[in-house]
């Protein structure tokens, strides 16, 4: 079984899972590679916008408002006369921050709650899961809306709001994972040699349980950006010198019939990013889940 050597997680792989993979193998990977390139490029945009963007994102060219995509302005200009291409490049920064930070915060808080509940079990589990159940009854965007409205629309608060709405998801997944890993024989085996609880938790349970969280996190990255843009749409976004994609899309939507490019390109950027992230997430999930490998 050579092919398994490089795959880190090897739960027992049933023999028959070596399924049809040759057919369209290249197509599947083409998707994955393209997505990876897209995501890497977007990360590059977020980190080094100056090197990529042709114009300053705040430069308002009064002579060229609402001009069509052209050789000078690849994505056209917006109603301020700003270069949409540059805006999209620079906008990736805050979009990524919203995505990554909220996933991190939500994942860490939700993950810890789930881990505690699942690992300790009993009363703690009942209480924590009750809280999560309650959070679940309030739909994500509503919670985000309330929090963003309560704290005011700053980037950080949007991140918090989005993170809060994602907590239940992470908590549930982590708890489920904890419960199942806890029952795995190797945990029992470690306990039977007298390993203290905290060590078992740190050495065995945690390293084996984060993979679905990672998958959820990747996908959550996209969802966060979408929720963020939903908040901009509802008027709870911030007005920044350099708007994030959600804000760009939301602000440009009124111009769709006159200047489709203003919102279409940020919209495509979101869709493309989320799409790529999801493809990567799917792949990650597949590779973590022995059953679908």
């Amino acid at each position: 079984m050579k092919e398994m050597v490089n795959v880190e997680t090897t739960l027992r792989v049933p023999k028959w899972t070596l399924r049809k993979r040759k057919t369209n193998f290249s197509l599947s990977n083409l998707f994955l590679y393209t997505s990876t390139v897209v995501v890497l490029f977007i990360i590059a945009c977020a980190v080094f916008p100056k090197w990529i963007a042709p114009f300053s994102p705040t430069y308002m060219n009064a002579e060229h408002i609402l001009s069509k995509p052209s050789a000078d302005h690849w994505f056209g200009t917006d109603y301020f006369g700003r270069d949409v291409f540059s805006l999209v490049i620079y906008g990736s920064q805050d979009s990524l921050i919203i995505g990554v930070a909220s996933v991190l915060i939500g994942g860490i808080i939700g993950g810890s709650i789930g881990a505690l509940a699942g690992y300790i079990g009993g009363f703690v589990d009942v209480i924590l899961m009750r809280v999560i159940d309650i959070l679940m009854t309030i739909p994500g965007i509503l919670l985000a809306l309330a929090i963003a409205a309560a704290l005011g629309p700053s980037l950080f608060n949007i991140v918090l709001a989005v993170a809060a709405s994602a907590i239940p998801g992470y908590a549930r997944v982590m708890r489920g994972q904890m419960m199942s890993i806890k029952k795995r024989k190797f945990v029992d085996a470690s306990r039977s040699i007298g390993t203290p609880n905290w060590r078992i938790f740190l050495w065995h349970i945690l390293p084996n349980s984060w993979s679905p969280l990672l998958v959820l996190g990747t996908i959550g990255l996209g969802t966060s950006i979408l929720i963020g843009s939903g908040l901009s749409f509802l008027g709870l976004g911030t007005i920044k010198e350099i708007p994030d994609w959600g804000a760009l899309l939301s602000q440009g939507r009124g111009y769709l019939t006159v200047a489709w490019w203003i919102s279409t390109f940020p919209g495509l950027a979101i869709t493309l990013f989320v799409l790529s992230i999801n493809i990567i997430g799917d792949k990650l999930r597949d590779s973590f889940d022995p059953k679908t490998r």
Partner: protein
Amino acid sequence: MEKLLEIKDLQVHFTGSHHKLTAIKDVTLDIKKGETVCIVGESGSGKTVTSKTIMRLIDYESGEIGEGSIVIDGIDLTKLSQKKLRTIRGKKIAMIFQEPMAAFDPVFTIGKQITETILEHKQSNKLGAKERAIYLLKRVGISDAEIRLNQYPNELSGGMLQRAMIAMALACNPDLLIADEPTTALDVTIQAQILQLLQELKEEMGMSILLITHDMGVAAEMADRIIVMYAGRIVEQADVKQLFEQPYHPYTYGLLQSITTLDSDRSKKLYSINGSIPSLADLPSGCHFHPRCPFATDLCKSELPPLLEVNNRQTACWYAEEIIEKLVDKRLEMKVGIQPQKEMVQELPERTSLPLFKVQELSKYYPIGQNLFSRQPSFMRAVDNVSFHIHEGETFGLVGESGSGKSTLGRVLLQLEIPTGGEVFFQGQDLSKLSARELREKRRDMQVIYQDPYGSVNPRWKIGDIIGEPLQVHEALSVKERNNRVQELLEIVGLNKNSYDRYPHEFSGGQRQRIAIARAIALNPKFILADEAVSALDVSVQAQIINLLQDIQRERNLTYLFIGHGLNIVRHISDRIGVMYLGQLVELANSDELFLQPAHHYTKGLIGSIPMADPTRIRERITLSGEIPSPASPPTGCRFHTRCPAATARCREEQPIFREVAKGHWAACHHPL
């Protein structure tokens, strides 16, 4: 006899993402009408692939028939379209599988799944199909067939499901029944029942059976003819009597020798074939068996031997005839020395009067389901009021059907679970009185080896870290010291010292079990609980591990609690054996005595269910009828009375006490044998 199925030069590939595997090659065999043919061989030898190929089921698993033909009734199955094949599947050829629970669709009733087959093959209308289903269920020995029809798979026990599975397979009166390890997942008692059923049905319906098994005992009892496979090829094929009398191929010989029998000499080491079956991805050159074969020559290394007719049977060995001679000559001497067999196990150490474990009235109940409507909590009585001792240095065996509470007893013994009642003294100390810390400290002396060699090691850890974990927890060693210790341990269990940095998935099942053993002995414990430690392994590997365990025991004066399915193996390794039934200990005796003179009817039934790897021995079967009841509501009185041939009214009402029927021989029976 007329030939029903003829397979010629069959070759099957699997196309994976990185490579193409040839799973079986040059497989030629035939099955005659009314004949039972057994395919035997170690895990991964291609038995299942062969059977699935006959049904062309491998098409759905990216398998592909490279060459060869499969002819049934003059039709070549390799050339048929899927549509035509469907008229053959289930109708002409039916199949039953290993895990009955997994083989039924959980969301449809048993009845629906049986009638569906009948209807698919247009054997009858809906009403007729239902009637036939009821008839079939009755025929395979399921009581209340009408009720069972409307039950879901999860509502039936494993044994019952396997019967239902057989009923389903017989729905359209197939000519050939393929049974892929139909009893491997079942208890010996149930296995005996199922095998008997198959025999009866075969005679009644005149069908042929292709039985796949890795248990030579089962093969001996069932087969007319046996086919031995190794690494995707047939290496030997012969009439059952001939084969057991005189194997032509060294592999077959090894397999037969590896069998532990009820009368094997306990003081001897178990025979085992060296090494393990190679991976299909890199097969050895020449004869695939040559790296494990004591007779291998240069020719074997370079040239693949064809399957040749010798004396009206087939074998694939360059030296078949010569070896036969040698083997015949020195049959009992075993000079060939595949492994040094002469070495005798040392005399058992004098029994110390001091017991290592003293178990008193130990119980473990699991609460089940709260009910708003009834206050009364209900319990699963997994272990119920069990008392016994384990002496220092002995191996205490524990047997019993699945669900009888063996594992649970082991776990409460080690305080891995808190007992509901009773006490456990370890070296005179009441374990339940220890603080969590003290208990952890005590765990140095008590270790566990589990059944599942895949699940019991953390897949993300390196072998060295896995083995070193107990050292890290209990002993403050420098990294270097620890490395040294781990390497020592690796050597002790017969693994390469350099395996330190490798991951568990790079090892075979047997090797993983060695890793588990290395880890268990790392702290020089006094006691090891081996819960089905060898049940998942092939016979030859099983023997290797048992030998290893015994070696280690001798060297370190270890005490074992050995829980096992295979009674032969338990008998071989244990000094004393306890028999459990429904959470209770029903018999306890020295292992030889237990098998020679069982006092409890249950024990007798168990022993009687063991298939004998000797086709010449015609034996009256004393199989146990019925199945183990649920520990949630055990029968009154003697718990065994529902299945006991000797049960009386007293047994129904009065619970027998566990008493000494002979010196050192305890049993809980009103009417001991």
